[in-house]
């Protein structure tokens, strides 16, 4: 990957929440990049830090949270060095974001037209009339029927799917170069999810933007993403192109996640599970964070945190199995042996 072809590069990002008792490291040294025009999926379960990562890119972390370190290079500028007013010019203009809950993400006391127009008025200095005209075009673009009428409507008068389309219209109003979509379809029904994913995909092609898609749904990842970063307990454990990730997952957590997923398209025997649960953020394991749940874990895993290492195919994995220091069974194949290792 050429550095210049990446729209955004995140290096060693660390975001913590400070409570009276402790510092909770929600995002702990996350690095990834998004190639221009491509879609990166960040997958993980609740508490993995995927949403905090996306809010950190926008610099929208609220008290008591704080970005404590790292770099976010967007078009060769570090966003963490920007002033608040410089950041405001980027938000909603060059980088936009849509959120999980379309029902609550729109302001109930303003019309749809007002809310889309605001983006044009802030970033392009348009008059009220011009902004409304542009908003109308945007509503057409996101496929809202009778857009002229909807412009004057309040959010509660629209369905969930329609509201998410309005959110997309707001986000894409100023034709951003990067769209961050945080679980954009999780709250929607599957038939509506299909509409929204297709819409995002089409608009991405049309506007040539890059997308970071935060999701817990591996199906959505497989269908929409080019690259995938798997997060676990505040760290990326695997980064791969989507083909490789699903065909030959490397990290035991990725393997476990894929095999514990009930699928509607094939028959499965008993689901393979990942035993135990996600570690508490205030009490992280010393070594590899997945070690307490990993069927392959050795003493090395329990004592030392593995680094995110490059593999031959350009992908990355954070696991001792793939390093020279591996002290377990040298013949082990994480993907093939996961089932037997878990049940034993």
């Amino acid at each position, binding site marked *: 990957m050429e550095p210049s072809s990446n729209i955004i590069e995140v290096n060693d990002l660390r975001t913590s929440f400070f409570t009276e008792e402790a510092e909770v490291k929600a995002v702990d040294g996350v690095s990834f990049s998004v190639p221009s025009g491509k879609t990166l999926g960040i997958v993980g379960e609740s508490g993995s830090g995927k949403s905090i990562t996306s809010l950190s890119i*926008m610099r*929208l972390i609220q008290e008591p949270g704080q970005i404590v370190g790292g770099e976010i290079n967007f078009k060769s500028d570090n966003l963490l060095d920007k002033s*608040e007013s410089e950041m*405001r*010019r*980027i*938000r*909603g*203009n060059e980088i*936009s*974001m849509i*959120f999980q*809950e379309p029902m*609550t*993400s*729109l*302001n*109930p*006391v*303003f019309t749809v037209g007002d809310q889309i127009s*605001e*983006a044009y008025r*802030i*970033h392009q200095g348009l008059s009220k009339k011009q902004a409304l005209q542009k908003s109308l075009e945007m509503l057409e673009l996101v496929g809202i029927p009778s857009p002229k009428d909807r412009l004057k409507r*309040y959010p*509660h*008068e629209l369905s969930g799917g329609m509201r998410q389309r309005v*959110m997309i219209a*707001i*986000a894409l109003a100023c034709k951003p170069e990067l769209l961050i979509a945080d679980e954009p379809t999780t709250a929607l029904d599957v038939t509506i999810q299909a509409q929204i994913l297709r819409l995002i995909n089409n608009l991405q092609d049309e506007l040539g933007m890059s997308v970071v898609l935060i999701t817990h749904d591996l199906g959505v990842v497989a269908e929409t993403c080019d690259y995938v970063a798997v997060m676990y307990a505040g760290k990326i454990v695997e980064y791969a192109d989507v083909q490789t990730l699903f065909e030959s997952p490397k990290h035991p957590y990725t393997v476990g996640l894929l095999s514990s997923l009930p699928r509607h398209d094939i028959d499965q025997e008993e689901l393979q599970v990942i035993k135990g649960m996600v570690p508490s953020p205030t009490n992280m394991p010393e070594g590899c964070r997945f070690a307490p749940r990993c069927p392959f874990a050795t003493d090395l895993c329990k004592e030392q945190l593995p680094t995110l290492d490059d593999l031959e195919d350009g992908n990355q994995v954070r696991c001792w199995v793939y390093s020279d220091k591996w002290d377990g069974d040298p013949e082990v194949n994480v993907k093939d042996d996961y089932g037997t290792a878990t049940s034993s």
Partner: protein
Amino acid sequence: MLVFVLRRILQTIPVIFGVTILVFLMIHLIPGDPAQIIAGEAASDAQVQQMRDRLGLNDHLLVQYGRFLGDIMQFDLGNSIRSGNPVSAEIGSRFWVTFELAFFSTLLSIFIGIIAGVISATKRHTFLDTSIMVIALFGLSMPNFWLGLMLIQYFALPPLQWFPVSGWGSIEHMVLPVITLGTAGAAIIARMTRSSMLEVINQDYIRTARAKGVKEQIVTYKHALRNALIPVVTVVGLQFGTLLGGTVLTETVFSINGLGRLVIDSINARDFPIVQGTVLVIALLFVLVNFLVDISYRFLNKRIELD
């Protein structure tokens, strides 16, 4: 919306009837013979009998109530015993004074309360926030007649003498009574605004506004405050309604000739038609204010229109 207004109007009808019944019964519930009381202790039996006839007290209670209602419909609340003037005229001349007093006090409450509440919420857990909330607690706990007396002591009497001690009419006259009456309301509204703002500021749509690149002040005053004020409107309305009937002490302290003093004076002089009329007017105003609050709440809160 129209259906809602009509339904709300229908709902006020029983309330209004209830009010008229209570006010009507007032004269019958006081101990002793109303005719005797009105005619005075020194009156002879014949005079009392005459008074009873004049008041129609010998008729059946229902007949009396019907007559009472009929009179109200024609804005006839009887005549004052002391002055002999129609009660409606007596109330009319005093009403605007009280209305002005209540109105400006509420305005002051809104102004101070909302600004203080917003500052408190945006600077939460800072020294400023704590100070505002402590002051608000004081404002809430202080009896207003005491506050009035203190204000007179420091600002109306020598050495400062900035404002007149009593009376009503000019802006100088208004300042101290309005502060006296508005302080508690400002405190209530400040606390209400603060908690409402804190709730709203964590909503998803506030995050959306920030993600859009909206300035923090605009996030606060446009996106958040508009939503946070919806519950505050109810408090403001009730505040105003309460003040219309709750100016008695303040009017007494500042010798203002408003409704409150009219009631007090009339009670002392046993001028029952006046007392009855004033209570009725205040109660009906309260019902009206409540009605308007409900309508405006409905109007502001677009979401509940769907139910």
